[in-house]
Every structure is written in C-alpha cells, then in structure tokens.
C-alpha cells in the first residue's frame, strides 16, 4: 500500500469533492459528508506518519507512471520528511476549516464544500508532486477554487479582492510556467528527481517571483489585505495558514534545490526583502484597525521570517523554517477561525467597537490568550523554537539580519498583545452585548485540537526539526551544491 499512500492522500479529497458535487445532499448533509471525508484524510495521514521512515532523507511513498514520455514528464509523486509535515498541516487545517464551515453554515453548500475538498487535495498535490508539470497543474488547481470561494462567498468587497488576487497570482503563474517549460526542455525532463541543477538566473527569478507573490513577500503583497479581509474566515485561514506554505515549499524544493548558484547569487537581495517584509508587516500589524488586519500583516511578517530561514541555507535555517511553517500554519488557522467566531458574535472585527469579551467568557478568553501567546512566540512555545533556529541560522550570514529579526519579534509582542487586550480586556466595547455567548462546544471541538497540537509541538518541537530531512537526501545535496558554489 505504501506506494499508493501519496496518491490516496491527493485524490481522497478530490473524490470526496466529486461526491459532494454530484450527490443531491441537503445543505447539512453536504457539510457533514465533507467533514467526514476531511477527517478520513487526517486518519490516512496519520497512517502515513506511522509508516514513514524518518532515518533516511530520501523520497518515500513514491509512485511514478508514464505520462508524456516524449516530453520527459510523468505522474510522479512522493514525500520527503518535510513534505509529510506540510501535508499534515494541510489536511488538519483543511479538516478544521471544513468543520467550521459546516458549523457556521454556508449558502450553496454542495458547491462550497466540494470546492473546499478540492482545494485540500490540490494543496496536498503541490507538496507531493515530483514532476514540474504535475506541480504546475496542482498549483493552478489550488488557485481556481480560491478565486471562486473568495469571489462568491466573500464579504462586501469581494469583487475587488478577487480581481487583485487573480491578477497577481496569474501573473506569477505565467512566469513560473515559462520557467518550467524552458527548464524542462533544457534538461530533457520535467522530473525534479532527475533534472540536474541549473545556474540560469532568469529561470530562478521566474520561480522565485511566482513564489514571492504567492507567499507573499514584500513588495508583492498587494492582494493580501483585501483577500484576507473579504474571504470567509475559514478560507482566509487556509490562505494564510496553508496556501502561503506552498510558496515557501516551492522556494525550498525548487528555487533553492534546483538552482543553488542563482539562489546563492540572489541571497542577499531575498534576505533583504524578507527582512523588510518582516519589519514592515509587523509595523503595519501593530497599527491595523481590526482583527483580520493584524493577522494579515503579521502573516506577511511571518512569511518574511520563514523565507529568512530558507535563504539562510544552513541546517539551522531549514529546520527552523519547516518548523515555523507548521507553527504559523496552525496559529494562523486558529486565529482566523477565532476571528470568525468573534465576528459572528459582534458583527465586526474593529478594535474600536470591541473589548471586554473576557468577562463571563472564560473559554474564549483562555483559547484566544493561548493562541495569541503562541503567535507572539512566547518562549518555550514551538514558535519560539522555530524563530530561534531561523534567526540563529541567518545570524551566520551576519548579525544584522538576526538583530533586525529580533527587533521584529519585539514588534510581534506589541501587536499580539494589542490584539488580545483590544478584544478581551478593557471596558466592554459597544459592539459587544452581554448576550454574546462564550465559545460553543462545536467551536471548542474545532479549535481545541489545533491548540493541543501547538502545545504538543511546544513540548517537543524536535518532532519536526529532528524528523524533516533525515540523513543524506535532499538537504545533503543542497548543502554540497552550495559549498561547491561558494568555492
């Protein structure tokens, strides 16, 4: 079964999506079936973790079938240790988002839940594809449901948000497509495991810009505030928690692993953009007027931090970045779902109208406090571990990067505490009525597992850092290539 595991992980949600689209389920049933499929997907992933051999750094659960033999393209999927964790993040976040949408209720439910499942499957495909054309197909397949989810089910400004999102991502995707075609033709294969590394800087830039738009990195984030603000909360959760990680994964798996010389060449530029993004995002988050604004801009900052780790191009940085991808994914999903829960009760996310929600709502207060503390990377949390590794890694290229990063972490404390106290503390806000309930059981059932995962990771961040790359394999290859370049 091992060879089929990856394929199952990709296509189980897609089959689920087809099932929900084609069967005339009631609104309630559609949500229930989608949630069930999403949970089955999580169970499947747990089986994969159990069977995974973490000692080796090689590709596992590999499956390859001929497709376009003449083009050198095939259906080739498989997982490295770090892809396994990112797929785990995807399926868990997907399950939480689907369950939340089921509980909150969405119009045209069959279409909606089908799209959610399809989205989950596509993202898993992105993390598993080992063929560039296949990677591109999944990358695009991931964007299409997002356009629809934002454009149809979004808030009042959804149209503008969708157009911006489409323009940015399509521009990025076209660059990537061009880069893929040229690279594949040059190498005579589209297979990532067989293609040689390349020193072509234009190709590197094609990939890098596509990923920089998707992450997003400063200054390619024009689509971000609107998309995060206008989406339904669970879609925003997936966008910032999971989809952005596809870009970070692309940096690692393609831009760095296949193009070590250009990555080395452009490293200072990318580190600079990432650092600017980190500080810039944190500063804007610190003054954002509403909950989603804070989460959106803090995500911009966090993606900058993750990119810092990746382009530190040493083991500290890679391990820290993978850990931080999972951390930020879980934190961001939890925060957006919590934002949705607060907005359901108050019909607003504006700080000026909120406040004092802790009183009489102990569950909400506890949950938001814990997630907020994770978000500011309170020491001993897994986010702290991730940030520490990333900054220790980038420190080796110069203390300045780490110093600016450390200042951004202080800013992180400022915006997280501001978010917490503006929602929970001070006098009761005008949009908060006494009738607004504490978190319901269903909401707790969705959010508490995410928090438990974060707590487990905090007790044992090495679950990820010690089990992402194994011995030999991808990172060993990258390191060797970088050493060769440096000489």
């Amino acid at each position, binding site marked *: 079964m091992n060879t089929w595991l990856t394929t199952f992980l990709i296509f189980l949600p897609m089959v689920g999506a087809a099932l929900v689209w084609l069967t005339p389920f009631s609104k309630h049933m559609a949500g229930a079936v989608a949630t069930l499929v999403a949970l089955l997907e999580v169970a499947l992933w747990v089986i994969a973790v159990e069977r995974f051999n973490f000692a080796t750094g090689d590709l596992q659960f590999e499956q390859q079938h001929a497709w376009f033999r003449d083009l050198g393209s095939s259906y080739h999927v498989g997982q490295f240790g770090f892809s396994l964790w990112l797929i785990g993040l995807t399926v868990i976040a997907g399950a939480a988002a689907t369950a939340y949408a089921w509980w909150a209720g969405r119009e045209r439910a069959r279409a909606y839940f089908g799209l959610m499942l399809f989205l989950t499957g596509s993202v898993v495909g992105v993390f598993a594809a080992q063929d560039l054309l296949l990677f591109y197909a999944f990358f695009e397949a991931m964007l299409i449901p997002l356009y629809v989810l934002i454009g149809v089910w979004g808030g009042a400004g959804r149209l*503008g948000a969708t*157009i*911006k999102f489409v*323009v*940015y991502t399509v521009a990025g995707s076209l660059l990537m497509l061009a880069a893929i075609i040229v690279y594949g*033709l*040059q190498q005579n294969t589209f297979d990532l495991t067989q293609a040689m590394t390349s020193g072509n800087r234009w190709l590197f830039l094609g990939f890098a810009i596509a990923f920089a738009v998707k992450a997003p990195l400063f*200054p390619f*984030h*024009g*689509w971000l505030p609107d998309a995060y603000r206008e989406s339904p909360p669970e879609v925003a959760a997936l966008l910032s928690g999971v989809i952005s990680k596809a870009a970070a994964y692309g940096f690692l798996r393609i831009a760095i692993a296949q193009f070590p010389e250009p990555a080395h060449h452009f490293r200072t530029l990318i580190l600079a953009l990432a650092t600017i993004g980190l500080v*810039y995002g944190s*500063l*804007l988050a*610190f*003054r954002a007027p509403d909950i989603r604004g804070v989460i959106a801009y803090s995500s911009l900052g966090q993606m900058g931090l993750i990119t810092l780790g990746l382009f530190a191009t*040493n*083991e*500290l940085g*890679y*391990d*820290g970045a993978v850990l931080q991808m999972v951390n930020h994914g879980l934190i961001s999903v939890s925060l957006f779902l919590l934002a949705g829960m607060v907005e359901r009760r108050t019909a607003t996310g504006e700080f000026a109208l909120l406040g*004092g929600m*802790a009183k009489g709502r*102990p569950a909400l207060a*506890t949950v938001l*406090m814990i997630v907020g*503390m994770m978000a500011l990377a*309170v*020491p*001993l949390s897994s986010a*702290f*571990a991730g940030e*520490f*590794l990333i*900054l*220790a*890694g980038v*420190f*080796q290229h110069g*203390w300045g990067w*780490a110093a600016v990063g*450390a*200042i951004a*972490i*202080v*800013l992180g*404390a*400022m915006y997280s*505490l*501001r978010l917490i*106290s503006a929602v929970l*503390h*001070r*006098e009761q806000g005008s949009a908060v009525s006494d009738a607004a309930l504490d978190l319901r059981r269903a909401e707790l059932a969705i959010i508490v597992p995410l928090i438990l995962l974060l707590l487990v990771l905090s007790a*044992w*961040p*090495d679950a990820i*850092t*010690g089990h992402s790359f194994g011995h030999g394999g991808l990172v060993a290859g990258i390191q060797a290539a970088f050493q060769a370049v440096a000489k």
Partner: protein
Amino acid sequence: MNTAAWVTLLAPLASAVAITLTGNLLSRRQAGFLATGAALVAFGAAITAFVTMVGKDAEERIAQTTSWTWLSAGSFHVNLTLLTDQLSIMMMLIITGVGSLIVAYSVGYIDGDDEERRFFAYMSLFLFSMLLLVQGGDLLLLLAGWGMVGLSSYLLIGYHQHRAAAVAAAKKAFVMNAFGDAAMAMSLFLLVQHTGRLDYAGVFENAPGGGALATVIALGLLGGALAKSAQIPLHTWLPDAMEGPTPVSALIHAATMVTAGVYLIVRCHPLFENAKAVENLAAGLGAVTLVMAGLIALVQTDIKRVIAYSTMSQIGYMFVGAAAGSYVNGMFHLMTHAFFKALLFLAAGIIIHALHDEQDIRKMGGLGKKLPHTRTVFLIGSLALVGVPPFSGFFSKDAIIASTLDRGTFGLFLFGACLIGAFLTGVYTFRLYFIVFHGEQSAFAKEHLHEPHGRLEGPLSMVWPVTILGVLAAVGGLVQFAPVWHPLTRWLEPIAPSFAEATNTQEFIASAGTVALGLLGIYVAWTMFGAKTRPVPQPVAAFEAKFWWDELYDAIFYRPAVAASALLRRLVEVPLVFGSINELTRGFRIGSVELARVQNGLVRSYAFALTTGLAVLTVIFLVTK
C-alpha cells in the same frame, strides 16, 4: 535527587493545568488550596533534594537529568535537561519556600474576587516558569524560563483586566522584557555560531575567552538581566507593575523574578569574567540604579511604589555584589531580600486590605494602634531593609559593600554609591513607616478601617505567612557572618568562586559606615515625618518625574514605531501596493476591451497573428536548444 527535581518543577505546572481544565468544577477556595498544596509539594521536593545534596561530597553534588531532545538542527541539539547543583537548589528553596507562603497568603487576600481561579492558575504557572528558569541545564531553557516568567508576570499584572491602567502596565512590562529577551537571544546566536551548543558546561568550556566577541556575548546577557531585574536603563516597567495584586508584587516583583538577573550573572559568571568591561558596566549600572531609585522612592506617595523603588535599589546592591565579583554576597542578599521584601509587601497588603484597597500613604496615618501586629512585622522588615544589626539585611548588604573595597579605584566609586544608598534607604523606608503608622489616625483611616477579623488583623491565611516571614527577616541573615562563619560561601564556592573578598578590616569599615548612615537616615526621617520637628522639604522635580525615563522611551521608541507605521501606510502601502494594483486592474479592464477588438473576424489578421506567433516560438525553441 533527580526525581525530586522533576517533582519540584512539575507540581506547579500540574496545578495550573488542573485549575484551567476543571473550570467551575473546582470552587474558588479549592483552587487556592490546590495552588498552595502544589507549591508546598514543590517546596518539600526541593528540601528532599537539598538534604540529599548535603549528604554528598562537594564534588558529587551536581546532578543532571535529561528527558528528551527538545530541539535539534543538524549537529545542534538542545535537550530538556534539569541541572541540580548548589546554586539552583538555593534558588529552588527560595522560590518554593517564599512562593508557598505567598500563595497561601493570596487565599485570604484575593478571597471574594470573581475570577480567583484564574489568579491561582497564573500563580502556579509563574512558579513553574521561575523554576524552569533556575533548573534548566541549558541556556535556551534559561531563555525559555526567562520569557515564561515574563508571560506570567504580564498575566498577573493585568489580572484586573477591565482596568485600563493595569492592561497598559502589563503590556509595558512584557514589551520591555521582550527587548531584554531579544538581547539575550542575540548572545545565544553568537554562542551557537561559535560553540555549536548551549548547555552550560559546553558553553563555558568553548566560549571565546576574551576580545570583542566575549564582550558582545556578555553584553547581550546583561541586556536580559537589566530588563528582568528592572535596572537602569530598562527599569520603568517595575513601578507600573504595582497595578497587579499585592501578592503578585511580593512574589514576582520583589522576591523571585526580578532577582533573576542576579542569578544569571552568577550562573554565567565565566562568560562575564571573560568580559571585564561588561562586568564593570553591570556593577556601575547597579550602583547608579541603587542611588537613583532611592531618590525617587523619597517622594512616592503610593505605598507599593515606595517598596517597588526600594526593590530596584536593593537589586542594584545585588548587581554591585555579583558583578564586582562577590557572587556569594550577591546571592546572600538575594535570599535575605526575598524574606524582608516579601514581608514588607505582604504587610502592606494587610494595610491595603484593611483600608478597602487604598494605597495612598497621604490618606494613612496612625495605623499602628489598630494594627499592632502588622506594625511590628513592618518594623522588622524596615530595619532589615535598612541593614540595622542584627536583622537579616545587615549581614548580606554589608558583605556586599565591604567586598567593593577589594576592587581598587572602581570599587571606591561603588563603595561611595552604596553608602549614599544606605542613607537614602534609611530615609525613605522610615518616611514610609512613620507616615503610615505614627501620629494621629487620619480621617480617611477612621472612616474606612475594616473591623478586625476576630482578634486577628486579617484572615488567618494572611497573618501566619507574614509572621513566618517576619521571623525569617529577623534571623535569616545569621546564616552567614563573613568575619566569623561562612557556610554559604563554602556551599556556593564550587559553582561560583568569588574573586572579591573583603578583609576583616574592610568588613568593619563598611559595617560601621553603613550602619551609621542608615541610622542617620532613620533619624532624618524621624525629625521630618515622625516627630515633625522639621518641615518636609519641597519635592525635587526630577525625583517627582522619575528622571523622565518614561518620557524618554515614549519619545525614542513608542512614538517612532507609531509614526513609522503611519508613514509606511501612507507612503508605501497605499500608493505602491494598492495604487499600483488598482491601476493594474483598471489597465486589465481597458486591455480586455482593446483585446476584444482583435477579434475582428478578418481571416487575414488571424493568419498574420498565427504566422508571427509560430515564428516567435521557433526562434525561442532554437535559442534554448
């Protein structure tokens, strides 16, 4: 011993988790008992470990226990390791001992509050964090504990979360400490780069032995220590932290957390000894802090703020002691200070409690007659604070001051500052004592003073911890009297051998000077506030304004951050990002209209487009091939 160490660490954590999860199942009072019980269990385990350790030879007293690898990347590993040695056991005993007394006191103090459970959960979380800080066998775990105590401090300062002042004070404390954490993190990055590890033994062995690198490493650690211990220039959060409930001030902002900086210097003394300049800087800042805080304390009118500034000042002494190379005396003063300062805060808590939460000393006066027991313990605490023999502060503070005489010219500067500080301590401490307890009972006190609880001056759970602390503050200093017996020195010697030792003559000079100046300070306070024979001098503007530190930070950090954020939004975010994309979408719409014109239905234009396209593709293909 290892099991005992784990029990000490985990008992408070278990209590915090249990109180959070059980919610309303646990009554408020039960939550208090649970937290107290957990603290006592931790204390018992710490004593067990201590007794085991005493039974061993000096060389075998260090024990390490590792549970699992917490974090790794390549060859870099951080294990979850507890280190139990002479230094950590001393801290464990102080934290759990004084901690259980204060948690027990809180049961009476916080009684009747809506959210008592939350309070006790936070208190337990704090004890866990503080123990992690001192028990962790690794610099990263130290940093983790360092941040966690900051978190619990934040939660407890902001415990009254509807009060805007409390929320603001909590945030200020956290952010200021985040700066310290960031500075510490920087030196950890350096250590990772140069030694590849973070466990104490490995770091001390492999760290750069001098030069700029060693200086920067020590500077980063000092930054963390200054923020946590509220030393100039990172001190402004501590007075504001008095917004928290009084037991919190006693536990976190007097007895334990704020002294963590001293622990850090002693624990990492090899790193500081590699950077003499930083060590002197630490001692110098301690000296400046102890004088400046003493001056500000002279004019404060909030009972807790007076004690808070006095805490800053006393930690200044500890910094002088530890950084001038007299580690034992720094730790000794840390211990006696924990006794008498916790005592002063808890006694102040009884007064505040009796006066319906009034903290302004101008509304107090003549309370001695109604609260004789509190007055007695407060007097003991005050005498210990001033350093009058035979109370505990005398032994520890004089030992620090004497050891500065062993440090040459720089030592003389420290010595002078310490003597000025001793005089100021006498004045502000007894100003407080005389104003609160002496003279006629004020109108406010007459009106508001609680009826006593039976024959006691507060609930039983509040009175007995104060009494125990009173005894400790009175006799706790007898543990060591440098000229005659020094068990503490022998105990800590294997971990942190001091390099500044005073001779008996120096001890005598220091003691005579300190005691004389302390008594003079008390006399001055008496003539002004007790006997009222002298008019109270006009307050000095600089003292009143706390030397304008708050204004300075507002101007150099908070406002620039706000301004930068607004500026970036106006100059970058809106025009560049939103503007460009709006232009782009507009262009997109216009472009699509233009493009629609291409579909003109003429075969010749289609054919032209087709051939051009093919030609371009062929060229690309040939070039890339």
